[in-house]
């Protein structure tokens, strides 16, 4: 028992090291990598939205490896059924009973690849399990392992053969990030190295699953002062009052903002939140929970293109006064 207790300094060092390892794998994506780790530390699920081949799966695999989590991958297709994810009870003629065969969801890190290519029915089966932390089948509740972390990737919604996730389900993800094309120098280095999948399997494990849970506990204790909470509230209020948003942030969204900011502050080695923390994670946390109004986005696209969301966030940051 005792060797599993780490000092805050040890934990912080290990997470920092994990970040460095990840940055070695995903070149030039320090910001996204940090956001992904932030999300993991806040016990949130992560949605990566980008074109195929941008490194989404690599990021997911590398995360699983350095945090010592047991990964499972599900490739979502249009004919995938809920039972393919959750598991199924099979009748055993010998005993005359049903036996439950757990599905791939019973894992610590679930990589749901191209989640928007499956039908809403299957999507909701996964998302409910994410929210509840358990699977209910045939009247029996089966808890999912601890920690349980879902990284879902989705292709941009304007691609063919996709079922866009509805707002209520997007809400289940703490963050949505996009990776984007690598910078020229980073891409050049990646091409030189060859970049094989094999690489991620050989990464060092920086943190045990138990240590990760300890970090998650510590993150929850990061202090949010009254001034800071006021600031978060003003941000939420802005999305509701301002004409650029077609609808504003839910209270759950505001809570998510605070939660993610806590682990960002912890990553910086602080025990209290600063406005910078909120500003850093704002786009990733709020981006998929709000929608630009018609006149703001100009195009009337669904769930706001990343371009219009970025503009909205910049506007919000510039107009909401930190000092009240």
């Amino acid at each position, binding site marked *: 028992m005792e060797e599993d207790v780490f000092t805050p300094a040890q934990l912080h060092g290990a997470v920092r090291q994990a970040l460095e390892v990840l940055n070695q794998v995903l070149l030039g994506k320090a910001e996204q990598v940090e956001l992904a780790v932030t999300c993991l530390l806040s016990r949130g699920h992560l949605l990566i939205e980008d074109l195929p081949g941008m490194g989404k799966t690599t990021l997911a695999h590398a995360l699983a490896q350095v945090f010592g989590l047991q990964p499972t991958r599900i490739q979502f297709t249009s004919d995938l059924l809920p039972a393919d994810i959750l598991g199924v009870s099979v009748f055993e003629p010998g005993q005359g009973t049903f036996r439950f065969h757990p599905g791939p969801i019973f894992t610590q890190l679930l990589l749901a690849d191209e989640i928007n290519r499956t039908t809403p029915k299957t999507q909701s089966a996964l998302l409910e399990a994410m929210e509840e932390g358990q699977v209910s089948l045939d009247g029996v509740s089966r808890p999912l392992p601890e920690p349980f972390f879902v990284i879902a990737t989705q292709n941009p919604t304007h691609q063919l053969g996709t079922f866009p996730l509805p707002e209520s389900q997007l809400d289940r993800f703490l963050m949505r990030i996009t990776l984007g094309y690598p910078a020229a120098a980073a891409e050049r280095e990646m091409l030189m190295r060859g970049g094989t999948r094999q690489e991620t399997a050989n990464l060092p494990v920086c943190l045990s699953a138990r240590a990760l849970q300890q970090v998650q506990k510590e993150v929850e204790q990061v202090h949010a002062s009254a001034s800071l909470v006021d600031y978060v509230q003003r941000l939420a209020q802005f999305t509701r009052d301002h004409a650029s948003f077609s609808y504003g942030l839910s209270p759950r969204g505001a809570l998510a903002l605070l939660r993610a900011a806590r682990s960002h502050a912890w990553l910086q080695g602080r025990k209290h939140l*600063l406005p910078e923390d909120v500003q850093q994670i704002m786009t990733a946390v709020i981006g998929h929970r709000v929608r630009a109004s018609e006149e703001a986005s100009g195009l009337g696209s669904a769930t706001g293109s990343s371009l219009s969301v970025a503009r909205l966030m910049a506007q919000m940051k510039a107009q909401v006064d930190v000092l009240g």
Partner: protein
Amino acid sequence: MFKISLTGSKSQPKSAPVQILEPLTPTAVIWQLLAFSLVVLPLLWHLPNWISVVAALAWFWRWGISQGRIGRPHWSLRLLLLVGIGLGVLLSFSRSTSLDAFAALLVLSLSLKLLEIQQRRDALVLLYVASFTLATAFLFEQSLVMGLYSLAVIWVWITALVSCWQSERPSHWTRPMRQGWRLFWPALPLMLLLFLLFPRIGPLWSVTLNTERAQTGLSDQMSPGEVSQLTRSAELAFRAVFAEDQVLPTPSQRYWRALVYSEFDGRSWTLGTPPAGLRTEWNALEEMEALSAPIDYEIMQERSGRLWMFALDLPQQATSESRWLPGRRLEALAPIDQRRQYRLSSVLEYRLAPQLSEALREYYLRLPPAANPRSRALAQGWWQAAEQDPQRFIQTLLDYFNQSFIYTLEPPRLPLNHAVDAFLLETQRGFCEHYAGASAWMLRSVGIPARVVAGYQGGEWNEAGRYFTLRQYDAHAWVEVWLEGEGWRRLDPTAAVAPERIEQTADLFFADEPSFMADAPLAGLGRGASRWMFALQRRYDAVNFQWHRWVLNYHEQQADFLRDLLGGVTPWRMILALLIPAAVLLFAVWLGLYQMRRAPRGDALERAQKRLFAKLARQGQRREAHESLAEFARRMAQVFPEQAPMWQSLATADERWRYAPDANRLDYKACLTALKQCIRRV
């Protein structure tokens, strides 16, 4: 662990249990080292030097470890050290099992423990033992300075305790001092209350310090050269306090009586034991007839380890803790092992024992038959010349001293046999004990009863405290001579040789003699140095005296104080008297802490920050909405690099006040101060 939280504990989530095995932060190690050195320092003065060396080595070793220069001692080495110090203590203190040995053992084990501290648990052990060690320092020294010093050390101690519970390295190593202070000051009023009201219980067992050192002072026999030895010391003997309404004795009346020597063996004067038949008469209190109004005063006697007490010539009544001894001197019932305070009243004009029985008169004439033939002959000659009139004989004796004798601190050594002859006829140089002894000899040899009285003469008057200070160098010896019809009269031959010695204080008289206060170089510094230093020294002495009188000896006044306060001391009244003020005090402290915790109305801060923004905006530096004050200040630090430290400190202060978990009113003030400074200097 009981933890006082000064910040909104309600808003904070319950923190994880603190691990006792967690390693200490570098800051905590600094505070351990600091607390250790401050606690040990006052004790080192009183212990053998090798212990200081061990403590210093341990300190530097631990410092080296924290700097990463030296490794930790191996367990075998630690064991060796343990055995080593055990043996060292045994050897150093083998002769006496006094408290010094235990104090030494405490200091040494603390030093070894210091080498071991690594985790929180070790630091706690070190600190708890250190708190005990700090208390033992009072066994050796109880001055006001020591009291204030200990208070300061307690603050440091609390800070060290705070720092070792912090698992995070604070922004600056002095930072825990503030938390230490916040725990320290609320305890002060409570301390005062307990001091005033808590009943004093006598010690359950008594402990003796190594008393050898404490025994400079008079002794129960007097041989030539002994009193002059005392003048080498400026150690305090006693103080005599006179109330405002009392008439002070004039310089020539300031004779403080301690001992009366009645027997002479040819060389030394001793207290004496008369033959069996004389005992009852001898032990009876000599009658005294007062010829002037009595003077009341209070003596505060320093620890002497002896029985005798001091009284202005001549005391009227014994106190409850003393008894009369022959020669009308006072003796305590138990050795004076600690400072003692007693009230006396004395009469300056008196007639003592006008009736002296034949047997006692014989006793006061006894001399060793064969000694000092030449002076005996000289005395006989004078006696004839004076026509057997004691008054004229005394006058002749004093005139003889006045002719060619020299009063000096460094008299030549006298031969063992016929010492009085040698002094009177050859060397003619001596200190008060020579003159007193020789006079008594001469008087006795012609049949005039005489005895030698030892005590102190003079004293330095301290106006601020209204007391005389008598130091060892004020030690003096004089003669009492019995005259028919007059009783015992004081005769001070020193006054004939060196009248200034009696009129002035000893320190002024001897200031030029090299051996005077030779053992107290620092005490002599204030004398010649300058007038203000002298005044300062007196002022300090007065303060220290009040400290002794009201604080250290408070237990003697407590009963009166409580009676006046409560109108009778009963257990119930005592309990109420303790509980009610304690409750009020605790409530006040809580209220103070609550006030401090409550966020002050931010008006002043808000106004100040608006003014700063406006002022900077005029210079083209506009704050963006998304910038907190701290971020803005950091940006300004880059814009105005020459003022960078000021902006940095504003950023730190703002971040603390607005966002840190334990922010309180002090942080608010710090932030406001930093803001105002920036406004001024922009």
